[in-house]
């Protein structure tokens, strides 16, 4: 799309100013970039060969990350059912769904890692702050998806049940739920995948899972061990993606 007229010129000017400002005030020195090559080579050099003796830690960390993702998703589903209903224009009045939607947007705007740090401060180290953080963070998206699933169903069967004298919850159960169930299943699996991926790094702030070992080994300069854990993480991400592709085929 081409920029046109005064608005276009103003927009281009703003973008150029933002780029120049970023260069001028961040110390981007080309000499440092040029000397980075050997340093990175040295870093990778110390990572090889990856130390295979950390298999036990990898297993323990991965299992914990998986548990954080499963329980975090469960928590998000439990929170998202009522919040999704309250954020749906089919089920409640604008006086209810507007503030709830604003609240969900606010939750989505807080990065997971920030929530995790706050939770570590609140409940201490370990997987518990990770689970709470994932549940809280994921609710912002999942409740919105559930509300959209409710609002996306065909209205006619709802009107038919209302005409037959069925109340709102009975309509939700028999007219809305059968229509939205496959959407809810797909959205929940999608969110679980994101949760699993995002929980991989939670250990870096002490909120449990495999990230803890990466951080520990990097801090103690055991790059060969850090390399093994990193490779395990990459393998897990690829595996999650492959499972997701297979699942998506089933739901579309």
């Amino acid at each position, binding site marked *: 799309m081409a920029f046109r007229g005064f608005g276009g010129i103003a927009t281009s000017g703003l973008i150029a100013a933002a780029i120049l400002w970023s260069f001028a005030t961040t110390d981007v020195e080309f000499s440092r970039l040029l000397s980075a090559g050997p340093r990175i080579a040295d870093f990778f050099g110390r990572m090889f060969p990856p130390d295979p003796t950390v298999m036990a830690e990898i297993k323990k960390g991965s299992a914990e990350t998986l548990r954080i993702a499963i329980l975090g998703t469960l928590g998000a589903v439990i929170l998202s059912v009522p919040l999704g209903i309250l954020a749906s224009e089919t089920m409640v009045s604008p006086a209810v769904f507007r503030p709830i939607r604003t609240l969900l947007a606010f939750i989505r705007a807080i990065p997971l890692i920030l929530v995790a740090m706050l939770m570590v401060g609140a409940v201490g180290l370990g997987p518990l702050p990770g689970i709470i953080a994932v549940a809280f963070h994921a609710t912002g998206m999942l409740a919105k998806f559930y509300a959209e699933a409710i609002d996306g169903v*065909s209205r*006619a*069967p709802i*009107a*038919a*049940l*209302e*005409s*037959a*004298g*069925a*109340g709102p*919850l*009975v309509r939700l*159960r*028999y*007219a809305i739920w*059968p*229509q939205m*169930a*496959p959407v809810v299943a797909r959205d929940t699996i999608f969110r679980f995948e994101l949760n699993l991926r995002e929980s991989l790094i939670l250990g870096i702030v002490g909120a449990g899972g495999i990230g803890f070992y990466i951080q520990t080994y990097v801090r103690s300069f055991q790059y060969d061990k850090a390399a093994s854990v990193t490779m395990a993480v990459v393998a897990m991400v690829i595996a999650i993606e492959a499972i997701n592709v297979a699942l998506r085929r089933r739901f579309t």
Partner: protein
Amino acid sequence: MSTAVEVDDLSFAHTGADLPALERVSFRVSAGESVALLGPSGAGKTTLLALLDGRLQGWSGRVSVLGAPLDPDRPPPSARRPDTGFVFQEFALVERSSVLRNVLNGSLGRMSPLRALLGSPTKHDLEIARTALADCGIADLAERRVDSLSGGQRQRVAIARCLAQEPRLILADEPVSNLDPARACEILALLTGAARTRGATALFSSHQPDLARRFAQRIIGMRDGRIVFDVPTSELNDDATAELYREVGPIPGIGLRAVS
């Protein structure tokens, strides 16, 4: 004979519409009668039926259904709603649910919300649903999912759901507009027959004069939101029908002609 529907000087306009959808409509339907609302698209038939079902508010006039007056500002109490059954033009079925489940849905209004949510259907509910399915000739389709059915089969499911509601008044909005003539006759025979055997009143809309004549005892002609005639079927003459469907004049400002 008691009165099932009593409408006096009823007017209604959809929000934002320039012209009223219904203008000073008055008529009466006796209990047990089968009456057809006849008229071209846009005559106000759907609006009138939805209003009698308690789904439209903000009208003026007096309307009373099965002896109880409707409130122009709020829907009727849910306890009264099962008494009025509605067959929707586009069926309004839950596509992913089974035929039996859809028919059982008709009886949900008669239960307490808690039992409707948590309880499985009782023997009594199942018997009513099975009878409705048998009356509509689709007992063998009970376990099929609605999205695997044809249009005619769906219409039978929609009628069966309405019957499972055990209504005393059946309102049907263009119940046969999507069907071929042979199927249309079957469905209307089924609908009016089921109403008769249950002692229920039937009010259905149609834009096909032949079908209205064949299946209604009385015909109410509508055009532009008004009642043009209201006669026993035997007294309906072709001139009146022709008048109902006469070509509409040019619509000012649009430059199109609506043709009957």
